[in-house]
């Protein structure tokens, strides 16, 4: 029994380590390569994986090759069946980029994605743009989110709550224990798109909220 717990713990550590590194192996999504074992097949496999990992990219408006948006991939052959690629996914809110290794096994591409950056593209506000960027990045690694995006989700929750509370409960007295300002937020992923967040206000009161990442990348606080 104890041995089983050790194995489970070890497996969890390995999974988390992989998640923090931002890398993951994709094996099952690979389709038979219509372009054979080729650079084009590698490009298209990476594009499929990035799209699948970032549901926002499934929006048809990001698909056309002529579009400024979408997934861009460049691959170079390393050996007969291996390609090293770089990719960039551009949507309305964010620019995600990273690297990918493609290995052809029985003419099927196996893609290993690694996201290396996430930056703001355009957005209506400074805070929300950052959050949306993070959210899009988050979806690229559903199974093992990196730590940085969580902090940005937390930032989004803090900003959103404060904006709402400032409107509904305007401060009346200087130096009072503010119930409208957030001291701390701690979020934990509860499902693929949802986060459960504990919020502590300046006056010591606490509240639990749920943050949900919508397919368009926006974080909705409920």
């Amino acid at each position: 029994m104890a041995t089983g717990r050790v194995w489970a713990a070890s497996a969890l550590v390995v999974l988390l380590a992989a998640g923090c590194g931002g890398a993951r192996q994709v094996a099952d999504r690979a389709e038979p390569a219509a372009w054979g074992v080729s650079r084009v097949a590698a490009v298209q496999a990476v594009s499929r994986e990035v799209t699948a990992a970032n549901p926002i990219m499934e929006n048809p408006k990001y698909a056309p090759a002529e579009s400024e948006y979408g997934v861009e991939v460049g691959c170079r052959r390393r050996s007969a069946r291996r390609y090293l690629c770089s990719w960039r996914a551009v949507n309305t809110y964010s620019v995600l980029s990273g690297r990918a290794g493609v290995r052809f096994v029985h003419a099927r591409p196996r893609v290993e994605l690694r996201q290396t950056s996430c930056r703001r593209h355009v957005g209506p506000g400074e805070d929300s743009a950052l959050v949306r960027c993070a959210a899009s990045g988050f979806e690229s690694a559903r199974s093992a989110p990196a730590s940085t995006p969580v902090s940005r989700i937390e930032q989004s929750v803090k900003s959103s709550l404060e904006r709402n509370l400032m409107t509904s409960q305007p401060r009346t007295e200087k130096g009072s224990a503010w119930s409208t300002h957030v001291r701390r937020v701690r979020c934990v992923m509860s499902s693929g798109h949802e986060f459960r967040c504990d919020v502590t206000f300046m006056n010591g009161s606490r509240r639990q909220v749920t943050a949900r990442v919508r397919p368009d990348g926006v974080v909705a606080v409920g």
Partner: protein
Amino acid sequence: MSQSADEPSGLTRRRFLGAAAGAGLSAAGLYELVDRFGAVPRRNLAAAAWPREQHVLLGQQVVTDEGIEVIVPPLHHRVVTAKVRVEGSRSSLLAAKAELEEALAALERQHEPSPRGLGVTVAWGLPYFRRYVAGPARAHLPIDDRASKAKGRRVLALLDAIRYPSDPAHTILDENDVAVLLRSDEREHVVAGAHAIFRRLAHLFEVTSVRSGFAGGGFSGGRGLPKEMALAARIPGAERIPDGAELFLGFTSTQRAAMGPSRIANLETLGYTSRNAYFRGGTQMHLSHMHEDLEAWYGRYDHDQRVATAFRPGIDVAPGTLTVSERRKDAYSADLIVSQYRHTGVIGHSAAIQTASRLAHDVRGADGTLYPRGTAVPQRADFNTLDNPFAWSSQPHHDGMGDGPAAGVHFVTFQPTSDDFDRVRLAMDGVLPDGTRLYFEPRDRGQGFNSVLRTTHRQNFLVPPRPHRSFPLVELLR
């Protein structure tokens, strides 16, 4: 046509190859079949007079295919290349000039200046200018101002051919003195033209190669000429050529919007060159031969992939479409090509070429014509062939002459300068005019055509205007 693919026209391979024997100037061989399979196009316009431009062939028929205007090229083509065998004295060269001019003029008297008659284009290579008329050439060969500015040194409009990134290392860069392109709907006219120049004037020329072929023939219904010819020659993959195709590779390539209008390819029209007074009305001609691997083209690419690599990724055309619109207004920019490449890994042959082959802005030509942005510049005169790689060669080993027929194309294009051709050809390999280089591996499937083409020979020529077509610059020798 009722014959099956297995029994093409009742010909056995032995009979077929036998027909191809006896190559040389008068070789008809397998190309006799062109008259059997290809209906001679009906030409409405009888051209009145020979233009100053040798490369302009008047009276070409325009048909509408899938709502798109398509130029019907002459049915029979032949290119004969040669070395000049005249001694280098001024008197000898002047005599040769007079003899050749008389032969050419006689051909013009016999044939009208249209595909119904005979189109003759005499082009001269740099070896001729260097060996026979070096002095006048230094003073009169046009300078390519655009290339000179780009490269920071003086660049001539006529340059030695080069190997491009997708060319095999063993592509031969020819060194012929002269090349004569003969075009007609009537094979007899082409043969007569070759005889009149190279047999009757055999004391002036040493023929180095004869390159024959055919074009068009796919617009009158049925299987179409390329498919019939490829089937008859038992070319692997021939049965997969679509019925009605204009060329072996399937797609129509002579639509009007993709061909340069009449005088745009002249040396002087677009202002690319200076010092061009002597050669005004002339142009630059690139001649190359490529093998086409039909089995790979039709076996490794499905229709959508062929469309994507031949035109552009993401284009939406009905299955089986052979004529795809390439309107002037749809001309592609380098940015778009890069975007398409990065999204799909594929470069569209036609779209990539358009970054260099179409005008980037409106140009008022030296002839007074306004050429709008997006107008195509190259005037192609390429034709399919079953030569391997030539119908006849004076150096069979050097030229890699193979046994039996092989699908290919003798690529002939007229453009204002050699550098202009280089730009277009490099764009085809992902080297765009703005300097962007897209990565492709050798025989990259994302390059479509390039992965199934294998270039065997290349050379650039200068096509003088008609008044100077015979031994140009010789009269200026001292």
